[in-house]
């Protein structure tokens, strides 16, 4: 052993790594990324959203521990794997192995010298990353992020680096180092980081459904090489408060420490294994030479090979083999054509790829990952979804794009390097094969690598579809999505990689630049800065709908794809021009960089750039003129500037009746609308003027006032009407309107969801926006963006006592008459009852009339089939019949039960209409509920929760809790809509499926709330206005839970009676209720008003969340039975009475019915926060489990720790 020799290898390898352009490209991009992160874009989701409130620091140990593993695993790992995987291979290609072996250098000195040098180089990179973080977070002045910066503590950076960064780095270096030496195939070591990305990025870090077994979750945490899953699951998932995250250390548990040590050791062991393997390889090679038998075999072969030539002129061969002159004379050579040459090169490359074992392993990995992702995908309310081929193809697009671009980069660069590496360069490059054929052939051959993930994902998806057993497999969507969207990306990317490799002539420079481009693109996508022009991967821009295939933004999407495709010839031309088949002369190259020759070169390439430039220009115009373009933004901003001060709080008349006729022109996504609003001044004062807001897409707008043409003052889209005489209190007036326009009016900036639209396949328009009718008064959201967004409003405690407007729609309910004209084969639904349907040769006009007033209305159209129930109809896409029968049953039951429980349904027929999944929502308009195709129709019931009932029950509940009873616009208002609908769903589940159905959904709501709440930002229910992070889960999940606990507090009959009274009292306005109105209204229904008020104070006016922990649990025989003892600790907040049960057996059978053999004995405990109580339960049977809150009646945190096996 010689440390001197080891150090000599170490120094050489370290210098080589630190001098590589790839290393410094990595560092340059890292600087950009770390700088970007220092702006506070990526922070722990915790803290207050108010000005001056506590913010999560980017400098805390938790924050660094969150960011560092991402940087190491998703970025540095790629460079590390390349450097480590190629370390031995590069020496082998340089043919210095034999010379080294001839020295006294020992294998382990060589391997460890190299291994340690690479570890040192990348540890240096990690240290530089830390130094950069410290500099940008603390050294660089940046007033805009002062709130996110805490005091500097070196340990906040060092501990995460040691605990998260270094072990991962060791593993990510050691494993590819071993793989590279073992296989001597660069591709294998490249596949490692891609596989890592696949497993970590797309599975370990984000797949965590609420129903996952905690033991499996725990195992996955320890298997995560980056530690992200552990950090998230242990510390971040359930918000522990910004104060905690800003100041506390990341507490490590023993299994996690062991896991980190194991990953570190794995890296070092991999280097050790490499050393052993390398030494064994040498011994084996020497052994072969020394072995007499093998020597004999070799010699015999050599002898055979060296036997005298049998020329045609000699011996027995004569006549069979031509003489050399004849042979040569018989040969002709004509340079192969472009295509033939390319195909020959492609065939050779293809053959090599087929011999890569890593490819097959990788394929299996992709299949498994796809299978898992598809089978475990979750949709609304954490329900499992039924995937269709189109959804599967689209949802896998981002993953596929990333995987294939990475693989293509590695394989293409290595392929172009191959001739140089194996020495065939002079033979191949001096052949008459055209350079284009050579490059194109390699690109074609390597396209197998691009094809491989596609096939693997398709197989995974096909298996998932078969296992789902509902949706048939079809190939069309895969061809469409992958062929149309993915293929141009892959072609352009391959051409780009070829061009870069041709220009740089270095695989390492190519990796550096290409990974830099990928990293930069992904960073910009994640920070929302890409548009159709720059989003060359169409990442996150495309939504799939079985009903509407790529209809939205089709023009922009196609132009984007053409633009990307048009770069292929440009990159190939660059590649052919720059490819150093004939090594360039440095002097001539410098000469070529002088202005005149350079201009000539640029001129030569200009024709190739013409198409990309033209398409890029067209696309930028499209974006500029689109719905999110600057012109539209300016128009909206003008509306805000001009009207905010004057019209935001101005009084407006109320609607009494709407009469509107809409003619749809689906191919052009446009409509013409004509109608009247009958308005009344409900104020006690005269109204001199009033305003209506028009849409930005409106063209040729004309108005009437009381039947006469009228020209209102157009204030950037706010139309101000000043009647000749002020409107007296109670006086009515009629405004007429007429316009036409397209909706959506132009392209979006970068795709994404569209909530209202007119498309050939379907129509969704609502009165919430100005898509087809004017809106009353000033619209608050228009023209508001990051620059002028105001802080969430602070409401006084007695706000609810004021007269509160409705949270949506008109202050007074109004009647509607909606006439819709569309294609003959279209069904068009609106609120109310069908009055008339008129058919012409090619159009259908449907008239909907509503005599029972509503506050908002809509139009939904499509080509559907119908499932008719007694009082309900389900309009569904013919390809989505899976859940329709059950949805119909649930709809009938819900309508009947809610009518009994809450209020008689005032309308007659209820329609549920499926619309294309261009947005994921359902909206409970009176009698006419639009369901996105993903909701309900493509829901898959899981083991415990009947998702179809949940989704349908919730949306139908909105007929009562949004329509019949419209909440007020203010804090706590939306809980009366969404929270009440969740509560109604709990009631419905218990009614239809028994206690287990309700309990399982309640647990799911509870887990969702525990995972998504933001402790510091959370406010009492009566203050929830949707403006703060975490408000959504409080509104839905906690709201539903607290209403359920209120029912338990009051008793079921009293609660339902109270709710019926509440609806009756508040349904007609003009004052609309907030949460305090409900709690006050229910007081008289309480048997124990004091206890009720205490309950309300705690659950509605405070933020409390109990957490129960069982400790020292034991069971022992006692007399004729058993005594179960434990200590029950209330580690959360609030004062609650909770039951504890010692149980034996399963409570429910598989089908949810009660298990007759189940036994239990209960006791109850009153506990305040921090209190502990001994448990001592005697049972006559032998219990096997101790369960806190066995009936799932108390909302609590971490329910899993509130039960114990005995």
């Amino acid at each position, binding site marked *: 052993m010689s440390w001197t020799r080891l150090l000599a290898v170490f120094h050489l390898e370290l210098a080589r790594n630190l001098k590589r352009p790839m290393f410094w490209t990595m560092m340059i991009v890292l600087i950009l990324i770390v700088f970007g992160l220092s702006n506070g874009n990526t922070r722990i989701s915790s803290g207050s959203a108010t000005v001056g409130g506590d913010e999560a620091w980017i400098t805390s140990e938790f924050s660094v521990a969150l960011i560092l593993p991402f940087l190491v695993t998703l970025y540095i790992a790629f460079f590390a794997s390349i450097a480590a995987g190629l370390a031995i291979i590069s020496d082998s290609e340089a043919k210095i192995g034999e010379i080294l072996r001839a020295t006294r250098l020992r294998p382990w000195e060589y391997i460890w010298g190299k291994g340690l040098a690479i570890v040192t180089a990348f540890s240096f990179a990690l240290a530089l990353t830390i130094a950069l973080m410290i500099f940008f977070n603390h050294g660089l002045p940046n007033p805009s992020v002062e709130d996110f910066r805490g005091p500097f503590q070196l340990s906040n950076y060092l501990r995460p680096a040691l605990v998260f960064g270094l072990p991962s780095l060791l593993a990510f270096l050691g494993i590819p180092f071993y793989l590279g030496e073992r296989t001597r195939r660069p591709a294998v070591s490249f596949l490692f980081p891609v596989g890592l990305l696949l497993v970590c990025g797309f599975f370990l870090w984000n797949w965590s459904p609420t129903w996952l077994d905690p033991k499996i979750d725990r195992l996955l945490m320890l298997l995560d090489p980056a530690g992200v899953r552990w950090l998230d699951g242990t510390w971040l998932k359930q918000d522990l408060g910004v104060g905690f995250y800003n100041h506390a250390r990341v507490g490590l548990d023993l299994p996690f420490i062991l896991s980190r040590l194991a990953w570190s050791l794995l890296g070092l062991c991999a280097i050790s294994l490499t050393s052993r393997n390398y030494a064994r390889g040498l011994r084996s090679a020497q052994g072969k030479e020394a072995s007499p038998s093998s020597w004999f075999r070799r010699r015999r072969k050599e002898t055979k090979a060296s036997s005298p030539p049998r020329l045609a002129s000699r011996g027995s061969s004569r006549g069979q083999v031509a003489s050399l002159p004849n042979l040569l004379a018989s040969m002709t050579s004509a*340079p192969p054509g472009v295509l033939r040459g390319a195909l020959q090169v492609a065939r050779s490359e293809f053959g090599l790829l087929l011999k890569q074992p890593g490819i097959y392993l990788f394929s299996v990995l992709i299949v498994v990952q796809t299978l898992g992702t598809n089978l475990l995908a979750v949709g609304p309310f954490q329900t499992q979804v039924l995937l269709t081929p189109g959804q599967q193809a689209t949802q896998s697009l981002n993953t596929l794009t990333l995987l294939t671009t990475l693989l293509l980069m590695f394989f293409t660069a290595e392929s172009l390097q191959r001739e140089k590496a194996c020495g065939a360069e002079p033979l191949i490059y001096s052949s008459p094969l055209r350079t284009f054929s050579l490059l194109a052939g390699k690109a074609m051959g390597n396209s197998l690598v691009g094809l491989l993930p596609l096939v693997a994902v398709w197989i995974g998806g096909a298996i998932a579809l078969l296992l789902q057993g509902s949706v048939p497999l079809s190939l069309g969507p895969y061809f469409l999505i992958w062929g149309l969207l993915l293929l141009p990306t892959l072609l352009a990317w391959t051409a780009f990689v070829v061009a870069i490799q041709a220009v740089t002539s270095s695989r390492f420079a190519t990796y550096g630049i290409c990974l830099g481009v990928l990293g930069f693109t992904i960073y910009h996508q994640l920070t929302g800065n890409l548009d159709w022009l720059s989003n060359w991967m169409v990442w996150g821009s495309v939504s799939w709908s079985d009903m509407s295939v790529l209809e939205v933004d089709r023009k922009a999407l196609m132009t984007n794809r053409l633009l990307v495709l048009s770069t292929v010839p440009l990159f190939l031309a660059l590649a052919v021009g720059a490819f150093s088949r004939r090594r360039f002369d440095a*002097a001539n190259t410098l000469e070529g960089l002088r202005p005149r020759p350079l201009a000539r070169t640029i001129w030569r390439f200009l024709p190739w750039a013409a198409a990309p430039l033209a398409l890029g220009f067209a696309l930028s115009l499209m974006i500029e003129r689109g719905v999110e373009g600057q012109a539209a933004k300016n128009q909206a901003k003008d509306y805000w500037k001009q009207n905010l001060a004057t019209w935001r709080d101005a009084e407006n008349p109320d609607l009494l009746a709407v009469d509107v006729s809409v003619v749809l022109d689906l191919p052009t996504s446009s409509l013409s609308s004509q109608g009247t609003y009958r308005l009344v001044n409900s104020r006690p004062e005269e109204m001199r003027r009033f305003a209506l807001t028009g849409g930005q897409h409106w063209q040729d707008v004309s108005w009437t006032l009381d039947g006469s043409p009228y020209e209102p003052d157009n204030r950037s889209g706010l139309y101000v009407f000043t009647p000749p005489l002020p409107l007296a209190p109670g006086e009515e007036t009629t405004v007429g309107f007429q316009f036409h326009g397209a909706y959506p009016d132009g392209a979006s900036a970068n795709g994404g969801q569209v909530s209202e639209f007119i498309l050939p396949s379907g129509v969704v328009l609502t009165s919430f926006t100005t898509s087809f009718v004017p809106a009353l008064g000033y619209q608050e959201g228009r023209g508001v963006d990051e620059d002028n967004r105001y802080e969430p409003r602070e409401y006084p405690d007695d706000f609810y006592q004021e007269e509160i407007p409705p949270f949506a729609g008109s202050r007074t309910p109004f009647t509607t008459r909606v006439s819709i004209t569309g294609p003959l084969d279209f069904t068009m639904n609106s609120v109310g009852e069908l009055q008339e349907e008129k058919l012409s040769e090619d159009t259908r006009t449907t008239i909907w009339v509503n005599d029972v007033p509503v506050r908002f209305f809509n139009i939904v159209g499509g080509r559907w089939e119908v499932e008719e129930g007694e009082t309900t109809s389900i309009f569904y896409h013919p390809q989505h019949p899976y859940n329709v029968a059950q949805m119909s049953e649930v709809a009938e039951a819900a309508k009947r039960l809610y009518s009994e429980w809450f209020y008689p349904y005032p309308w007659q027929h209820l329609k549920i209409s499926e619309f294309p999944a261009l947005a994921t929502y359902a909206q409970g308009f009176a009698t006419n509920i639009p369901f996105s195709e993903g909701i309900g129709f493509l829901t898959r019931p899981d083991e415990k929760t009947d998702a179809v009932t949940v989704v349908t029950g919730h949306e139908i509940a909105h007929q009562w809790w949004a329509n019949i009873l419209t909440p007020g616009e203010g804090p706590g208002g939306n809980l009366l809509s969404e929270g009440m609908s969740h509560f109604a769903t709990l009631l419905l589940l218990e009614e239809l499926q028994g206690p287990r159905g309700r309990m399982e959904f309640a647990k799911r709501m509870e887990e969702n709330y525990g995972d998504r709440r933001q402790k510091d930002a959370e406010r009492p229910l009566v203050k929830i206005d949707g403006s703060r992070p975490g408000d959504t889960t409080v509104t839905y999940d906690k709201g539903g839970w607290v209403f359920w606990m209120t029912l338990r507090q009051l008793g079921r009959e009293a609660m339902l009676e109270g709710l019926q009274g509440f609806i009756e009292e508040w349904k007609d306005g003009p004052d609309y209720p907030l949460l305090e109105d409900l709690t006050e209204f229910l007081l008289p229904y309480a048997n124990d008003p004091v206890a009720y008020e205490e309950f309300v104070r705690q659950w509605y006016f405070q933020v409390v969340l109990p957490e129960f922990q069982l400790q020292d649990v034991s069971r022992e025989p006692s007399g004729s039975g058993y005594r179960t003892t434990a200590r029950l600790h209330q580690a959360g907040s609030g004062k609650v009475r909770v039951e504890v049960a010692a149980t034996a057996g399963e409570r429910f059978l598989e089908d949810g019915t009660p298990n007759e053999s189940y036994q239990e004995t209960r006791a109850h405990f009153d506990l305040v926060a921090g209190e502990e109580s001994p448990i001592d339960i005697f049972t006559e049977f032998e219990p096997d489990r101790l369960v806190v809150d066995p009936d799932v009646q108390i909302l609590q945190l971490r329910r899993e720790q509130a039960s114990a096996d005995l």
Partner: protein
Amino acid sequence: MLTIRDLVKVYPGPVTALQGIHLDIPQGMFGLLGPNGAGKSTLMRILAGLLEPTAGQVSLHGEDILKDPQKVRRHLGYLPQDFGFYPHLSGEKMLAHLLTLKGVTARGRSLRKLCSELLERVNLSAAAGRKVKSYSGGMRQRLGIAQAIAGDPRLIIVDEPTAGLDPEERLRFYHLLAELAKDRIVLLSTHIVEDVAVLCPRFALIRQGRLLACSRPSEAVAEVEGTIYEGSVAPEELDRLRSQHRVTQSLLVEGRNRVRIYQPEGSPPEGFLPVVTSLEDAYLVAMGNAQAGGIAEVPEGRHPNSQTEPTPQAPAPEGMS
């Protein structure tokens, strides 16, 4: 005719590898002789279209091959000094691949058959199915030869072709080259003087990127005829001898140095006798002259003219026709 005019190649550094080479290479075998680092391989790589020169012109049968390297690639058979093959392919498949890239076809023969016959020519039939990575150096060289001669190329460039070949194969290869040179240009680059002496009717001497001489081997030998003496001296006398005479060769044999000196004028030292001169003597004298007096341009009139001489018959190995 391959015509080279004022060819200059400067590598970054700068290192001038070729300093204005001016050469006409007629049909037949032409040797390029020079020590290591003389610029032979640089010249070969430029001619094969693998390296862009800094300046100069090269034309093959009147066509400018620097402007359009594709023109030379169509007619080229190239065996570089250092080369390899795709290690995952068998010898036969590798050859078939290269032949396809060159567009080589043969009347009445499939590509497979053609490869098989070529491999038989270079005595690799038995190893045709083996992966190239398992080939010995000699076998690789022979496979290289097979691809170089395939397609009836008009210009064959072979750079140090006999490296790695055993004597028997070397002779066989000489024979092959001699046969090929009958109706095409064969440019042989080597630092083995004997190869040139045996094979090439004309050759050029190159050193430090400059052409020192261009003549027939017989002319070169005739120039030093009678000026080379050989004798034996004790090792301790060698330095004294060097100071007084041009020592061209010195070899320690049985404790004494057998020495050759170049003595164009005057008497040789005592005990030194005139010897029959070889091309190696002429080469060493020319190199010594260049070293002593700086690089001299090739004298006017030494440029080879278009007149060609019959290719000498290569010494055939025992039993070869």
